């Protein structure tokens, strides 16, 4: 009868081997930190490195505040032109169809477009951000970024574009003039 394979190992702390291991672990940690910093800098809605004081809402506050708005609540704001709608989807999708009058501010090119937009939209104006509606990740990230940059009334359209179209609310194609 063959015996099951069994092997007992004993840990020997050899300083000649432990020190290089510690060095390697430290190098891996530093590399991970550098990589995370680089990714954060590259992301359009990356986290800020500076504390911006109590006047500016932080990303965590933005997520805690009720930023969601249902289509039923957004519709009268649209009808009475009391809100600016921002489409966070890529330009190709925006050009095919978008909410009538919406501005395209794709999350990927957020930084470059935002400066132009900031001049057009006062900080207290109601902004409703939307994307395709499945997880609303793009619109949530864009809403947080707008709040961080000082816009005070930013909402995310719940279920976004999909729900707007399901309700057959006004849409248009091409560029918004």
């Amino acid at each position: 009868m063959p015996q099951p394979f069994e092997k007992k190992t004993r840990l020997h702390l050899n300083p000649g081997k432990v020190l290089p291991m510690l060095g390697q672990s430290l190098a891996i940690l530093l590399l991970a930190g550098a990589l995370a910093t680089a990714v954060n800098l590259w992301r359009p809605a990356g986290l800020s490195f500076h504390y911006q004081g109590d006047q500016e809402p932080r990303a965590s506050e933005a997520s805690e505040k009720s930023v969601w708005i249902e289509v039923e609540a957004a519709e009268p704001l649209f009808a009475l032109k009391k809100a600016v709608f921002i489409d966070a989807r890529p330009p190709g999708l925006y050009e095919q169809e978008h909410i009538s009058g919406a501005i395209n501010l794709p999350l990927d090119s957020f930084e470059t477009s935002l400066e132009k937009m900031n001049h057009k939209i006062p900080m207290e104006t109601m902004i409703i951000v939307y994307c395709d509606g499945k997880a609303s990740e793009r619109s949530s990230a864009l809403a947080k970024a707008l709040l961080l940059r000082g816009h005070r009334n930013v909402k995310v359209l719940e279920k976004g574009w999909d729900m707007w179209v399901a309700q057959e609310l006004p849409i248009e194609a091409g560029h918004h003039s």
Partner: protein
Amino acid sequence: MNYEGRLVKSARVYSNDPGGMTVLSLRAFVASPIFVRPRYASFYGFEKAEPILPLTIEAGLEKALSLEPGDFSLEGRVAYTIQEVKKGRLFRIVFRALPGAPGTFRGYLNLKTNYPEKPLLNIKIIGRFIQKDESGGG
């Protein structure tokens, strides 16, 4: 109506076969013969306003497309014109809401095409008109 792209559908088939469950899958590329953008015409405005709403219809196949007006259910509420922007390729339908009382209306415009793949285009038209004083004077 406008979807074009890859399509994958699959179904799991359970049986008493010793092999157990089988997955049947279908992969296809869907080509749209005609693109209508936006997919419906939805007006929103104040009473007595005459908003206009353009729609583009683009041929998705190589052969020239021709359009012919069919049934229209909103006579007296909405007017429309058909313009051929690029012969056989691109058309522009301009809807214009006629001044009327506040309220909601819903209807359609059917366009007959020469494409056997899509002989009829049904364009939904929705209108929502509100009283001016609802806006607080705006």
